[in-house]
């Protein structure tokens, strides 16, 4: 089963839920940190580094001896990543999406493709948990291919947890596609509710069963709960606004390790996920 942990709003506790859930499942679980702009799970599960692979996207390489400057590549490219002004085309690598179109349309076969590095995928082992994380290079704007590279390491035979980036745009979609259940983490505040609504719309669009974790219960009001009731969305777990949780988090400690009284919370979460997934979710 693939469980994706997401949230409309950042900083609601996605990583807290992901890493503690991984620890609760224990040995054999895969944890994929798909927040490639800010991968954080490794801060809580240090472990041992097992390997690192460079991820590239294919960008065009023009063979000037074959090019007759017809400009077809530039007319085709939607991203202005290759352009010709009556001479051999210029390539702008950071604009290229790697679709391969320019090489296909070139009538003289003058365009080959070469890899351009966008980031790395690192694998770690921490107490039987396999942690795979993507890390995008600074200044690179193209996260989805790196998210897809992280997800290529998925082993279908075990349970996998995907820690998604915040928001509802391209890299989040790339993370959620193909997962079996989505856990949306929110907090009971106006911002939390507003962003939860967006996230719910997104998950419904993707037609994946989902439920909600309400973090920092007690800080705000009950509008998130009312919303979930009206929309018939299961609340999978409530975590109280306990300053000790925030402090443990600030030091990079797992809640279930630092505060064992919360172990049962995460066990309940896991049980609820399995329950609602088999029930088809909402």
């Amino acid at each position, binding site marked *: 089963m693939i469980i994706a942990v997401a949230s409309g709003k950042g900083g609601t506790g996605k990583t807290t839920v992901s890493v503690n859930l991984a620890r609760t499942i224990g040995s054999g679980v895969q944890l994929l940190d798909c927040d490639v702009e800010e991968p954080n799970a490794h801060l809580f599960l240090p472990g041992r580094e097992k390997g690192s692979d460079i991820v590239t996207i294919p960008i065009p390489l023009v063979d000037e001896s074959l090019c007759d400057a017809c400009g077809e590549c530039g007319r085709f490219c939607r991203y*202005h990543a290759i*352009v010709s*002004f009556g*001479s051999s085309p*210029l390539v702008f690598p950071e604009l290229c999406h790697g679709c391969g179109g320019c090489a296909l349309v070139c009538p003289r076969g003058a365009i080959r493709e070469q890899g351009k590095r966008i980031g790395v995928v690192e694998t770690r082992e921490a107490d039987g948990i396999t942690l795979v994380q993507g890390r995008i290079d600074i200044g690179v704007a193209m996260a989805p291919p790196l998210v897809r590279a992280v997800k290529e390491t998925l082993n279908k035979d075990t349970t996998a947890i995907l820690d998604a980036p915040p928001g509802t745009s391209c890299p989040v979609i790339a993370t959620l596609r193909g997962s079996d259940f989505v856990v949306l983490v929110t907090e009971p505040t106006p911002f939390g509710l507003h962003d939860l609504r967006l996230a719910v719309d997104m998950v419904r669009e993707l037609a994946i069963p989902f439920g909600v974790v309400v973090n920092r219960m007690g800080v705000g009001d009950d509008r998130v709960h009312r919303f979930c009731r009206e929309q018939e969305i299961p609340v999978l777990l409530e975590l109280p606004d306990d300053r000790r949780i925030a402090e443990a988090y600030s030091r990079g400690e797992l809640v279930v390790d630092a505060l064992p009284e919360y172990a049962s919370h995460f066990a309940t979460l896991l049980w609820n996920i399995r329950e609602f997934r088999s029930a088809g979710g909402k």
Partner: protein
Amino acid sequence: MKIAFTTSGNTLDAPMDGRFGRAAGFVIYDTDNDTFEAVDNRQSVNTAQGAGIQATEAIVRHGANCLVTGHCGPNAFRALSAAGVRIYTTSAATVAEALEAFSAGALATMKSADVEGHWS
């Protein structure tokens, strides 16, 4: 010779726009017969990325050999150089003033990009 000026208007009195890729438009002045035409750059302004490249395509399509602007990012600089467009910088307030400075030979050519590109 045709000179492209970056501007937010469409006459010689219009204020200069310091940007190139995301300039509102261009006034393209033809020195052979002292006429000009206004070219809209909305398409480039609205593009996600590669505005400087698209803007270069636009002025080249209108036959410009020179560009007079305030600043120019790295992608636009590469594209303009490849297209054989000479780049001049100015801080003149209007197109007419910039044209006067250009005609007097008072403008410096740009040898490299002077601002960070991307979405600025």
